[in-house]
């Protein structure tokens, strides 16, 4: 009984975000403000997680929403959900920044543990269906490889940086992640 209304509200939220995003692309200031209200905390969390520096994260988030304003017109709801589009935009903004400042940020990254400290909500059964499916497939990987995939996703670090961080040869890190990606693809597409 509980499932249905929850799924319904998740669908509603997706539709509302897609509409707000389209309207923002059409320079609708009210829609843009509402989109910011609903999504900025999530996107700021992503910026903070990847950039680890408040000022940088603020500048990145500002650029993300400027891109939304200028480029949301290219958002295609048939291809991706609004939140996926926004998170992709945010991650790309952060990764580009990391690549530009690689020398300075590497020290901080090295200090960071490979294993992501946060227990995912998937572990608590609160996650969306897609997140749970991904968690199931991640669980089929060896512990070390699962950790490498998570570290790569959350840090935005290059193969080189990840290898250095884990103290393994570059070829080993590439092999871990590529094998993991192949397994994930097989596992995830088995569901569809």
């Amino acid at each position, binding site marked *: 009984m509980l499932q249905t209304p929850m799924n319904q509200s998740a669908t509603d939220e997706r539709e509302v975000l897609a509409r707000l995003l389209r309207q923002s692309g059409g320079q609708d200031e009210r829609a843009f403000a509402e989109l910011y209200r609903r999504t900025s905390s999530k996107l700021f969390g992503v910026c903070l997680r990847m950039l680890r520096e408040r000022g940088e994260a603020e500048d990145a988030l500002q650029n993300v929403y400027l891109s939304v304003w200028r480029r949301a017109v290219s958002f295609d709801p048939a291809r991706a959900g609004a939140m996926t589009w926004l998170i992709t935009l945010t991650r790309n903004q952060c990764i580009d920044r990391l690549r530009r400042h690689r020398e300075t940020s590497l020290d901080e990254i090295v200090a960071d543990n490979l294993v992501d400290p946060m227990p995912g909500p998937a572990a608590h059964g609160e996650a969306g269906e897609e997140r749970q499916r991904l968690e199931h497939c991640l669980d089929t990987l060896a512990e070390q490889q699962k950790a490498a995939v998570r570290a790569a*996703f959350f840090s935005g670090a290059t193969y080189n940086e990840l290898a250095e961080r884990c103290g393994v040869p570059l070829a080993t890190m590439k092999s871990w992640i590529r094998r993991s990606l*192949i397994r994930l693809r097989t596992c995830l597409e088995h569901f569809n």
Partner: protein
Amino acid sequence: MNTPLDNESEDLRYAEYVLGVLDADARAAVEREIASDPHAAAEVARWQRHLLPLAEDVPAKAPPEYLWARIQNEVGAGKSPQRTAASATRVGWWNSLSLWRGFAFGAAAVAVACIIALIVMPRASFTPRAAPPIAYMASAIAQNDGQVGWTATMDLQHARMVVVPAKPQAIPTGRAPELWLIPAGQKPIAVGMIAANAPTMIALPPALVARLGPTAALAVSVEPPGGSPTGQPTGPVIGKGSIGAAVPNVSGKPVALVLPDRSAHSAT
């Protein structure tokens, strides 16, 4: 560098791109493919659907309020080409956090006090006949020892305020300074938490902007980090300052900013 997997899984570069492990050159190459090749775009979209649910694990965190003001300004500046060059410049310097940081750390407290003395006009200037609309107001928030702890500059047109620490007294661990607006004869109104070691930008609600003026004052009290739980100051008041109009110079910037602005220009 080459492993057998390189040949075996050519399409993995789209997955690697989405995961974020490619270096700048390889990323740029994939981005060019996405733009020109529908197959590449579809593969990247597929991997986004696969991997992006991981982002659900990242805790949300509300951005500071001044960020929305900054975004709105940029958006506004971009879409109205009829804006004058002067107002475009104004948006530029106001949004330059490094300028404010330079102001905070570069200016000695004495210099700040002098500058504020120069720009805060006598109250007599607030006659109904003061012809040009006042664009900025300023306040030097003095502490009990007479030293200026913070300076506040208010941009009325864009409803925002920058509070820059000059020489604030030490704040006890686990406490934080909160800024209040005190209209004459009325209760304090919370403006926001301010930092003791960096400039703070605050977006001002219209009700607050309407109350800024020569009869109002700003004050700083010491509160729990999240702000006063009661909506009124609960800790000691450590600073207070009256509000005056800031005189714009020819370029439209308050003269208080002439000094740091110059240094910022020479630095860039």
